């Protein structure tokens, strides 16, 4: 009896260990399969020309596979979103953690959680019917499907990440810092601005980075409202196409095993590497704070 129980426990514990390692396994598996399908594209185009090539015509003959316009599209939209979301998000986090009364705090947090729960395709749809016409009339444009619309929408979608992590960072600043500042005669705002924010800076930086990571990886909403023009963008008021939207829009038509198919996987590698670097760096910042 006892040996049966022991062997059963042995099996269960080994199973638990295997599952514990599952997340490492899946991250490696994702990367390997992206490499397996994506690296084949470099038989037809050099990595240099792939990243810096200025034209993306994957189905012309021969195909032109330069993803610079897509990278620029992603950068432009991300930059715009960062400019909007970083000040607003950090301000909101400061308000929630320092200024708001307990009851208001609960309501605001619930609102932010609600935003995080709304599916991106629903936000994309709402952006299409509200934000896009607004941008169009506001700037007298032929179309409202522009990088700016994408930036505004993505800034909005990055808020839950930025606000919640920034709020955690502010919350974990030792109370004595703030009390010390107040005791020296600083106003509440001076204590926040001069003491709390610098003390929380590495956590705030992590919040900003993870928010940007969210923006770069976002797919559906950005595909629905940025207009999907795969040319080099000149201005934020033009349609652009991002890395993510290119994959989502074109993979359905790409033939498995074609150069187009391989190229889209190579775009996936680029995205994976970007998100990997952002997450590892942000984790280092968060870890530094924990120490």
């Amino acid at each position: 009896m006892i040996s049966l129980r022991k062997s059963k426990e042995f099996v269960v514990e080994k199973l638990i260990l295997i599952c514990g390692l599952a997340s490492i396994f899946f991250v490696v598996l994702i990367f390997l399969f992206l490499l397996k399908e994506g690296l084949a594209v470099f038989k037809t185009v050099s990595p240099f020309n792939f990243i810096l090539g200025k034209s993306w015509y994957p189905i012309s003959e021969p195909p032109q596979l330069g993803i610079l316009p897509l990278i620029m599209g992603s950068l432009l939209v991300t930059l715009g979103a960062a400019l909007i979301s970083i000040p607003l998000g950090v301000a909101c986090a400061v308000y929630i953690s320092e200024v708001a009364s307990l009851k208001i705090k609960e309501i605001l947090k619930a609102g932010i959680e609600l935003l995080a729960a709304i599916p991106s395709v629903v936000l994309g749809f709402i952006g299409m019917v509200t934000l896009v016409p607004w941008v169009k009339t506001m700037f007298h444009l032929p179309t409202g499907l522009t990088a700016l619309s994408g930036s505004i929408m993505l800034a909005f979608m990055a808020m839950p990440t930025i606000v919640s992590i920034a709020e955690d960072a502010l919350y974990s600043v030792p109370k004595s810092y703030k009390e010390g500042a107040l005791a020296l005669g600083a106003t509440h705002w001076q204590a926040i601005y001069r003491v709390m924010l610098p003390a929380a800076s590495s956590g705030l930086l992590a919040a900003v980075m993870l928010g940007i990571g969210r923006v770069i990886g976002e797919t559906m909403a950005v595909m629905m409202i940025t207009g999907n023009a795969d040319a080099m963008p000149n201005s934020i008021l033009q349609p652009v196409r991002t890395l993510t939207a290119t994959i989502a829009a074109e993979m359905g038509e790409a033939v498995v095993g074609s150069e187009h198919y391989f190229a889209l996987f190579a775009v996936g590698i680029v995205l994976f590497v970007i998100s990997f670097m952002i997450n590892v760096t942000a984790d280092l910042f968060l870890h530094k704070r924990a120490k």
Partner: protein
Amino acid sequence: MRNPLRTEKIAFSLLFLATLLIVVPVGLTVVIIIQKGLPAMLNRGQAGIPAINWQFITDIPRQGMRAGGIFPAIIGTAYLVSGAIIFALPIGLMAAIYLSEYSRDNFLSRIIKLAIVNLAGVPSVVYGLFGLALFVVFFKFGASILSGSLTLGIMILPIIITTSREALESVPYSFREVSRSLGASKWQTIRHIVLPNAISGILTGTILGLGRAAGETAPILFTVAAFYLPQLPKSIFDQAMALPYHLYVISTQVPNVDEKIRYGTALVLLVLVLFMNLVAIIIRYRFRKKKKW
């Protein structure tokens, strides 16, 4: 001379304004969808009193998705979400048990945690690519409910691991010590003491994972989603429609769809996802009140 108190007042007003700029659009989004989506679900009943029109939820799409209902999309999403959870819950829960009960604070556990963070950060469309390469092409499952469920399952794994681990770790250490001192083995302690006390937290995480899986579009684009399939899937190797993809299709790919149908679909999806989140919040709240330690 600058007056610090006035500066403070201005600064706090600006902070408040920033907060409003974020929260008000959230409220507006929900209100607009409810207001414009409800007509899809209401009929002019007798004496002008609106009655619920079940047809939108129970009928198949007709006339190239310009009329009829969204039943196959709802069923497809239900299948996908169930499949994802059947796959992700056992693995996620056991991974959480490993992290909270077995692992020490060493290099390996640090790497595992980093992997979880990265898994959570991988862009959703990259999950789609991965699902396509591994399940659809390599394992030859084709575009099917099976491929889509497995892809979504891997995507929600980090949510389930993180929330379950928090739940397990919130069980006081003394519970484990008492159990072990009574002669129970480590696994018996986990099975009979730790898990029952963490069950509501695990449930919360599971439901949050379900909600996430129900709303995601990019991972199912190339692994399962059918553009227009006015029938129900017969097996897990069939393609299926799914609510989020259906919303994408009728709002960008099909011209001249009645606004009512678009908003109605958005409303059904939103209600589904928010309902699951609400259930999760209620469980968490009741659990906190009941907590004995």
